[in-house]
């Protein structure tokens, strides 16, 4: 990771009053914090922050368990400040009001309408801090017939077509083996925040951005949707989906093939005739010369047969050795890497996994950012906050409370 201390932070001076949790929200404000925004994450002391289901869930660094020890929670919340506010109390609401008054942005990914019912809908936020940026992120958005529906990442993926379009023929949907739309919903939320902050910086004008994760997901099928609206060709048709094959442009072979060992695989893609002419001699078997495989259209016409031939050739080979041979010949390929292989043994992920210090967990590695900035590097040094870890700091600086006053609020159940 780039930690050139003397360089400035891109978002220094931006303060975010953050209610985000899970990954779909927390991922967005993680980006802001990495670039120097002051992200103040607000949690509910009564429920010990358990609205975020990741708070106490593994993986764990050791045998200890509990709400301060969730590995995913730490991963998604590095660099943020954490405070507790009981918004059932008037004093809690007053303190929140004071924090909002000094913030540039309010972010949340509650179900639609929750923040409004807490008394902090957009009109109120804008009254407290005129020109504030408010970004809400929920499954179906704040308007439309399904606005009240609730989602998790896999449900967003199901309803938006992402689950359907990932799979092999004659099988159920394979979908995504993780919440791709929690990650990606977070990316869209970060973009929305940055866009609104840029607009505010240039005009002074704030706004409420309504982000619906399902809608963001639906933008990720562009060519398939235009094939529908222009050619009336549905994705739900015979032989589809078959997502290990190329949808566009035509490529064959194009698949994931077995290698020697248990659950070892390699992806190979021939983009054009030149790639095929590089691959065929490496295979060195008579079938590669057959006319049925001579052109990309011929290979696609007999792709099942082609794939069986390629698989028979790859099956006895070690995946990384085969990857090396194919890459030397210029054929696009990649061993299907297991987590340990790509995290610990792949030179192309060096610098991507910074170690942060978490007050309870200790030193932990986390997902970094896949971009190097020459003038404003991202930084990750501090782990996620323990519950209320920064109460004294934040309430002292922003609300003018002395440590004894903060302690009294804790006694009273306000924080």
């Amino acid at each position: 990771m780039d930690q050139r201390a003397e360089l400035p932070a891109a978002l220094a001076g931006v303060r975010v009053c953050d209610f985000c949790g899970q990954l779909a929200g927390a991922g967005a404000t993680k980006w802001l914090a990495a670039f120097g925004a002051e992200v103040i994450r607000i949690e509910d002391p009564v429920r010990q922050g358990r609205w975020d289901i990741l708070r106490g869930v593994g993986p764990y660094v050791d045998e200890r368990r509990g709400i301060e020890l969730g590995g995913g929670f730490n991963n998604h919340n590095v660099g943020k400040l954490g405070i507790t506010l009981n918004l059932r109390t008037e004093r809690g609401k007053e303190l929140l009001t004071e924090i909002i008054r000094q913030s540039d942005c309010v972010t949340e990914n509650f179900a639609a309408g929750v923040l409004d019912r807490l008394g902090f809908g957009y009109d109120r936020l804008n009254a407290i801090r005129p020109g504030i940026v408010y970004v809400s992120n929920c499954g179906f958005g704040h308007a439309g017939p399904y606005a009240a529906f609730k989602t998790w990442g896999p449900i967003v993926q199901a309803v938006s077509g992402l689950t359907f379009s990932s799979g092999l023929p004659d099988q159920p949907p394979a979908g995504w083996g993780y919440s791709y739309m929690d990650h990606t919903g977070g990316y869209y939320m970060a973009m929305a925040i940055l866009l609104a902050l840029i607009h505010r910086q240039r005009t002074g004008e704030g706004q409420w951005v309504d982000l619906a994760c399902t809608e963001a997901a639906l933008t990720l099928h562009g060519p398939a949707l235009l094939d529908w609206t222009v050619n009336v060709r549905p994705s739900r048709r015979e032989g589809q989906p078959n997502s290990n094959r190329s949808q566009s442009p035509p490529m064959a072979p194009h698949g994931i093939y077995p290698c020697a060992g248990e659950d070892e695989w390699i992806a190979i893609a021939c983009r054009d005739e030149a790639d095929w002419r590089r691959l065929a001699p490496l295979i060195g078997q008579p079938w590669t010369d057959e006319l049925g495989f001579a052109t990309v259209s011929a290979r696609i016409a007999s792709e099942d047969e082609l794939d069986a031939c390629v698989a028979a050739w790859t099956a006895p080979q070690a995946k990384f050795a085969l990857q090396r041979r194919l890459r030397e010949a210029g054929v696009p390929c990649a061993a299907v890497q297991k987590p340990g292989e790509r995290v610990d043994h792949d030179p192309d992920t060096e610098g991507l996994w910074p170690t942060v210090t978490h007050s309870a967990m200790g030193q932990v590695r986390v997902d970094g950012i896949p971009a190097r900035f020459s003038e404003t590097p991202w930084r990750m040094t501090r782990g996620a906050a323990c519950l209320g870890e920064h109460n004294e700091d934040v309430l002292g600086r922003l609300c003018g409370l002395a440590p004894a006053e903060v302690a009294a609020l804790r006694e009273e159940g306000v924080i």
Partner: protein
Amino acid sequence: MSALAGFRVIELASERIAFAGKLLADMGADVILVEPPGGDPARGYPPFADDVPGRERSLWWWCYHTSKRGVALDLDHPGDRERFRALIASADVVLESEPAGRLAALGLDYDDLKALRPELIFVSVTPFGRGSANAATPVTDLTLLAGAGPAWSCGYDDHSLPPVRGGGNQGYHTACHFAAMSALTALFWRLTSGRGQFIDVSMHQASNVTTEAASYSWLVARQTVQRQTGRHAALVMTQETQMRCKDGRWVNTGVPPRAPGDYAAILAWLVELGVADDFPERVFLELGAAREKPITYDLIGVDPEATEIFAAGREAMALIAANVSAYEFFIRCQRRGVPAGVIYSPEEAFEDEHFRARGFQVPVEHAELGRTVRYPGAPYKLPASPWAISRHAPKLGEHNDEVLGETAPQEA
């Protein structure tokens, strides 16, 4: 005013970054797409409008190049390089994914261009990052998602079936999301500092940090997740969350029911369908409905009653699914407060009343074909600085005169 109105982006045409340019263009940036005089190869990507091939008819091209203007320049030609440099003098952002070393050889890399435009933000998006020993290694979306982790986590319980690459070129999309986030972060900083910078995005790294627990289970605990049909890869095999409905289509039941109200709602539904008496675990649904608190995961497998209730809830969902259509299952679950989702194809989602009501279908005029085409709409709604498709994808060289006329080199 659009959020990025007045910012000019120069995009060197590549399939790998087309979506990043679209994200900025649809927010109002003046994105100028630079292609070689023969056209970018992606103009030949199917499908084509009316299935008639043609360099202005690729729907791939239409989709990824909305709201951009296009110029054709031969950067191997000195005169066109001068025109390109003149264009850079007016640019705020460059987006590029050129083959390793090509821009430096042409004298058009960041160090060359920042001399012309010190506040330039130069976003390089390459398969493995600028400094990689693999900089010249060819990739596709498939090989990226295989090498970077996503494929390991996607597929089926049956591990004799290969891991699956999710559809839709999401490896490219993920890199483009990071490219856009990076460009916006740098633009914000430039508004306050006046300074530009060089940004080196690695596509391989972008997908590496987009695998949720697969990465951090290893980072935190050196544990390896295993792929499972239609649900999260996990350390151990979990129970299925996809169910097939009466109409043969699938639903995702998400997190299985755990709250007392969920069990009451499920039982009521079984009664309504007339199958409650056929359901042997009915008593456990009643016990679940009578609980004071939701069942938490730590009880499952430990507390016998909670374990039975949890299992009964799941089985009841399967019985309901077998008796209703996938769409009905989705709607009725959600109206009862139970999160669930119908597994739509992309076009089924596109035509759904919810997205239509939100204005997701956006008409774009294609005057040359005498028709209006419905496009996918905004990923987010910024009412004060709205998303919009300002024009359809540019024809080859369509804006050469208009754009290059504005920025022509002095001597030209």
